[in-house]
């Protein structure tokens, strides 16, 4: 058996280029555009479809329903502890497609680059995209690059779209939850959102918090193998775990009862949340998922998740109930009960 390469340690030297920053001409379709694509982008994203350099990718898909998703990434700063906009853009769309139960097959990548973006930064982002795609086992099959004038975007924006094929017999829906089902969370909450927040201008403070950005298509595969009756899966990104659970409760017309003591937050993340007055239930995650499974399959799914690198801290955090339809309630650490509501908007650090 061949050892899996350690993508994180692969070196990724910047090729010699005529410019050290992105120029408007890099997006004008002429020689400089070709130079950028040939020297910088193609070596990182090579795939049989992309190598043809056609205007579109033509895919031979296995039989089954097709899952299709798109997402645009505008994170600021583009480099943050534990990741950057590149791996986030790959993992985010892989996860959105994978949550349907699909095998993720191919991605498109669209760049909007700001004039003046250092080529070294762009190259670093391309390298982390390459590594993330390889780790997730997906191909980048088509793409586009545009350059906008200085001030028209924040360094770099990336759009990724993904397609996958849902295996026969798999049909997940947030509207299919039944009282008695177990709600399983794959790990700790709030790592990504707090990692980004701690390096934001005006808020920066030293911390050891790192983003959890990761592709979860291996974990979804393991969940479906162990729990064929799985009702739904979702990666709680913006709005956090609380938002995803509220969406489930409304879609299925059921209630969800959580146990606060079962929800894990890393100590450094919890500390950052306490300092800023932010509730981890509402903070974005980029490498976690919530699975709702029938009670009879909960043990098997939990074990399968815990055996996977991205689910080793998985836990049952609550259950679906017939009471209070449309609402998520939580048993507090003191044994009282409270509502876990939808957030009004982005959580803002409190005055004191």
């Amino acid at each position, binding site marked *: 058996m061949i050892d899996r390469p350690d993508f994180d340690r692969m070196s990724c030297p910047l090729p010699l280029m005529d410019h050290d920053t992105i120029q408007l001409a890099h997006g004008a379709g002429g020689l400089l555009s070709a130079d950028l694509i040939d020297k910088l982008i193609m070596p990182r994203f090579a795939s049989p479809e992309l190598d043809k350099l056609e205007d579109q990718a033509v895919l031979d898909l296995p039989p089954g329903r097709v899952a299709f998703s798109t997402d645009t990434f505008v994170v600021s700063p583009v480099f943050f502890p534990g990741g950057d906009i590149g791996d986030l853009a790959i993992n985010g769309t892989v996860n959105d497609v994978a949550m349907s139960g699909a095998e993720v097959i191919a991605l498109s990548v669209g760049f909007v680059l700001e004039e003046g973006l250092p080529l070294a930064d762009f190259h670093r982002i391309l390298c982390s995209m390459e590594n993330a795609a390889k780790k997730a086992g997906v191909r980048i099959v088509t793409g586009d690059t545009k350059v906008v004038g200085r001030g028209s975007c924040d360094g770099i924006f990336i759009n990724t779209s993904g397609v996958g094929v849902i295996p026969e017999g798999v049909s997940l829906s947030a509207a299919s939850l039944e009282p008695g089902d177990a709600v399983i969370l794959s790990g700790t909450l709030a790592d990504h959102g707090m990692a980004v927040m701690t390096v934001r*201008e005006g808020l920066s*403070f030293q911390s050891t918090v790192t983003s959890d950005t990761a592709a979860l298509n291996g974990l979804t595969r393991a969940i479906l193998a162990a729990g064929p009756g799985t009702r739904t899966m979702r990666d709680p990104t913006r709005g956090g775990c609380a938002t995803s659970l509220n969406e489930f409760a409304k879609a299925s017309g059921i209630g969800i009862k959580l146990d606060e003591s079962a929800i894990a937050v890393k100590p450094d993340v*919890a500390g950052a949340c306490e300092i800023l007055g932010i509730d981890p239930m509402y903070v974005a995650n980029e490498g976690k998922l919530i699975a709702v499974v029938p009670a009879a399959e909960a043990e098997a799914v939990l074990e399968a998740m815990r055996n996977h690198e991205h689910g080793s801290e998985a836990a049952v955090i609550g259950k679906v109930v017939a009471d209070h339809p449309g609402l998520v309630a939580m048993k507090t650490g*003191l*044994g009282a009960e409270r509502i876990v*509501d939808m957030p*009004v908007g982005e959580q*803002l650090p*409190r*005055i004191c």
Partner: protein
Amino acid sequence: MKYLDEFRDPELAKGLLAEIERTVTQPWVIMEICGGQTHAIMRYGIDQLLPPEITLVHGPGCPVCVTPLETIDRALAVAAREDVIFTSFGDMLRVPGSRDDLFRVKSRGGDVRMVYSPLEAVKMARENPDREVVFLAVGFETTAPGNAMAVKQAAAEGLTNFSEIVSHVLVPPAMEAILSSPQNLVQGFLAAGHVCTIMGWDEYEPIAARYRVPIVPTGFEPVDILEGILKTVQLLESDQPGVENQYLRVVREEGNPVARAVVEEIYEVCDRKWRGIGMIPGSGLKVRDELAAFDAEKKFQVEGIVTEEPEICIAGEILQGLKKPNECPAYGKECTPTTPLGATMVSSEGACAAYHKYSRKGLS
């Protein structure tokens, strides 16, 4: 996590609840001063666990809530100026003024930036000598030292492009306003622990004596709050008004003398209008006259802006402990966290927002 887990310990909490039940023999109305305490009470469901004799009412200690509409409107006017970088703590950004909030000013091109420390704003002033940097300095005694320090630092560096819109408020005059009202229901206070960290508790002794009430400086974790309630009930039941400190790990009798000195050096006491309550004499801080160059309201001449509140809102009665949020006819209907009509719904620490977020009390 150390200093958190032990103060959220369910067993300790249960023991305190049992002790409160053993101690209480008659109904008592206790006010927690600080919005952070209200938030914790609702978040952990402490109000559901207390014996029925104890009624908690929610005090005026939410700085976002009580910042008057005029101040918000003045801040919005300054923030909209092209020459200004406007800086603020995060939770002031969403607070609506008469027509706008800071987010909307930003969307129209205003340079509005969130900071965690006012010293970040001073740094921006240093790095942007051709722009005016204004910081919205709100809060109780807790945030006053940091905000005063920003002015002191700017003055020491000779920065002429830094100023503050100051809307600081002080707790003791508000307590006196509540206690001296003929309709007052409050019989004991959980004083705001972090305010006392700065100020100590010597200001509370004369209030406790004059109005014959117990005042207990209390922390913000569930065990702190339950212990604060227990101490207050013990003092009430034994008819011993006075000040007793619950927040021993943080609060000293003299407070923080260094912090108090900075506040004294930069700010002076003034009359202050509280949103929802009205004018309370001697209840605010403003930039000292000799430091007027750092007073943004003077610098940008926005002192003239005057505004009125929606009539239906009963925030004033809620902030004085006379009513609870679910007794308001607009609560959860016209007034929600996305469409706040008044002071106590605008901030996550406001009593109405806390009720809405954690319990939907009174809503079907």
